[in-house]
């Protein structure tokens, strides 16, 4: 997880993380395809014992910023790509075309009490790259350039992990884990782009998808110390099995066997009915509504680049994914017996 923190992939410009994943995961696959959107497809043939097909879907992108204007005095105005709260951006460092910038605004001493009490708006913020004029800035930056929020990865506390894009990177780690094995059935692992700007990558990635089971790896808002977040899943209590999302209910016949197996093996998991829509929405539209399972790791402070997750939950998501994959085979056996 910490190694993946060195690679950035703001939606639309996932190059850095994408080439890392390509190099790392293609040797584990029988065939690798990067489609026109930039989604990565890894195919792994089955042992031939089963005619079934399974797909695991993770995502590689993360929120960031895009330059909208270069001011006369060399500052950059920007908008966010994906969801980032302005409050979490103040005094953060941005990496942009290999140079650094500081997101900031005027010193606190120069503000009135009234000004300070109102939440900072995105329009008040600017990026300071150290340039003194537009001309100097233009040698390094162009309008439309993407910037990533610089944040180190770190393990801390009792098994916790801190960094940017934790939901995405946990999915990538599990995708790698899944590809390390050969299954009785054909496996198709997809790591999508542009999840954070409205699940765009998955739309093309799933166009020609053919699978009997789809497992989506995602992140869910987690509980923190305050009252507002109490309704969300807790960190360290295991990965979340979504029973519902903003796109609809998850097929209970898929969930129950996973729960049974997890109970049997005494694995941690949490159930949660989310109101948010994620990549599953596109799968539902493609007719995979009754074949799609979503597992999430709970992530604290998801609206910032300084996120917190728990290693036990990532481990739990890895185990649940394996259970759900093996389920495909046992179902087949069960169906054969029925016949």
């Amino acid at each position, binding site marked *: 997880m910490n190694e993946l923190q060195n690679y950035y992939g703001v939606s639309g410009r996932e190059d850095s993380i994408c080439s890392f994943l390509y190099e790392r995961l293609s040797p584990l696959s029988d065939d690798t395809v990067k489609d026109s959107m930039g989604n990565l497809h890894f195919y792994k043939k089955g042992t031939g014992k089963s005619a079934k097909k399974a797909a695991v879907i993770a995502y590689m992108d993360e929120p960031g910023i895009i330059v909208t204007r270069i*001011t006369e*005095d060399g*500052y950059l105005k920007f908008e966010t790509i994906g969801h980032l*709260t302005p*409050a*979490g*951006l*103040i*005094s*953060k*460092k941005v990496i942009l075309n290999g*140079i*650094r*910038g*500081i997101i*900031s*605004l*005027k*010193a*606190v*001493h*120069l503000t009135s009490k009234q000004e*300070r*009490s*109102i*939440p*900072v708006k995105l329009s*008040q913020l*600017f990026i*300071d*790259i*150290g*340039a*003194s004029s537009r001309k*100097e*800035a233009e040698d*390094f930056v162009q309008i439309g350039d993407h910037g990533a929020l610089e*944040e*180190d990865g*770190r393990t*801390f*506390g*009792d*098994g*916790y992990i*801190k960094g940017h894009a934790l939901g995405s990177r946990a999915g990538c780690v599990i995708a790698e884990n899944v590809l390390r094995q050969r299954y009785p059935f054909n496996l198709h692992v997809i790591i999508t782009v542009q999840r954070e700007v409205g699940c765009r990558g998955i739309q093309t990635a799933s166009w020609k998808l053919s699978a009997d089971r789809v497992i989506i790896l995602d992140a869910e808002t987690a509980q*923190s*110390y*305050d009252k*507002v*977040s109490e309704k969300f899943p807790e960190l360290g209590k295991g990965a979340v099995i979504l029973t519902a999302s903003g796109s609809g209910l998850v097929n209970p016949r898929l969930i129950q066997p996973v729960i049974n197996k997890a109970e049997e093996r005494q694995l941690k998991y949490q159930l949660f009915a989310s109101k948010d829509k994620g990549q599953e929405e596109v799968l539902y539209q493609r007719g995979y509504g009754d074949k799609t399972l979503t597992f999430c790791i709970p992530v*604290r*402070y998801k609206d*910032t*680049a*300084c996120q*917190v997750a728990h290693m036990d939950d990532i481990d739990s998501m890895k185990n649940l994914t394996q259970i759900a994959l093996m389920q495909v085979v046992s179902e087949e056996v069960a169906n054969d017996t029925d016949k």
Partner: protein
Amino acid sequence: MQLAERLKLLTEEEGLSSRETSAASMVQKILKEMEITSYIDGYGNVHGFLPAEEECAKTVLLEAHIDQIGLMVSGIDEKGYLKFVNLGGVDERILYGMEVMVLTDPPLYGVIGGFLPKKKEKEEAKNASVQDLRIDIGFSREESVKKVHVGDYVRLKGNTCSLLGNRISGAAMDNRAGMVAILSALEQTRKLKRVYHTDILFSTQEELGLHGAYTGVEADKTDFAISVDVTHGETPDSSEITGVFPLGCGAVICRGPNFKDDYTQQLIHLAKEKNVSHEIEVASGGSGTTAWAIQTIGSGIPVMLVSIPLRYMHTNVETLDIRDVQAVSDLLAAVLTGGMNLDE
């Protein structure tokens, strides 16, 4: 040593207000390398002394504060998160989503997070303040209580890095930059004929109320003093405000009742004469710097203030132009080598 290199070294060293020991030992080490003797007094202030050639020379005090802003643990909640208070005026707007270090032994990393207060109907949305936020150190209450104590210090994380041009950004530029300017002036004049005995004071707890300067200045042996601090650097949203200075403008010399004006005018004249780029700042009352303390210590000390423009003061990304540190250093060096006429 190069200015930027020394600035990075000093700004990345920890020295929170009232806990300046690490930064103080580092600056003592630097003074030792320059063969300047120094000691640390009971209040944590670093004192150094560099004699002039003539025994009967007058004594100038060069002063800069050593401490930096931070946070302090004020409680541990039932879930193990740390409550905290401000240690010297941190800009609270920056705290949400910031990595910090709790200075226990060994230190613990943490993240300041939380949900921003939600806007209720008919209620103005509010900014998160320290009361709304917590430090997440990733331990249960039982563990947190064992590892962390109320009163433990918390440092904002911020590596010092270079931006384009001559700009450098990091934590604690306020006021390690001032210290670096003094150190560099001493280095520049080490081999030259200096006309004043030079007292050096790196004072503690400025951010908490100028305490170190009040206790550390020895009025009897000081003929005049120069405080070096930071002032506000211009940003696009502050250019309408008076009292902000563009980065790269040089040394900012302050005028007002806090300072001995005829000396200050000499200083401005000296800057012109030596071609040191400079600007003039005005403080109609308190300057908010250690100069305010120094002026009335003992029977009073004629004091001047020279500042370095700094953007985003009291954050972990304070940004300055290294040329301004150089300008202040050049101006101080000009004073030490006899640019002032104290009898006038």
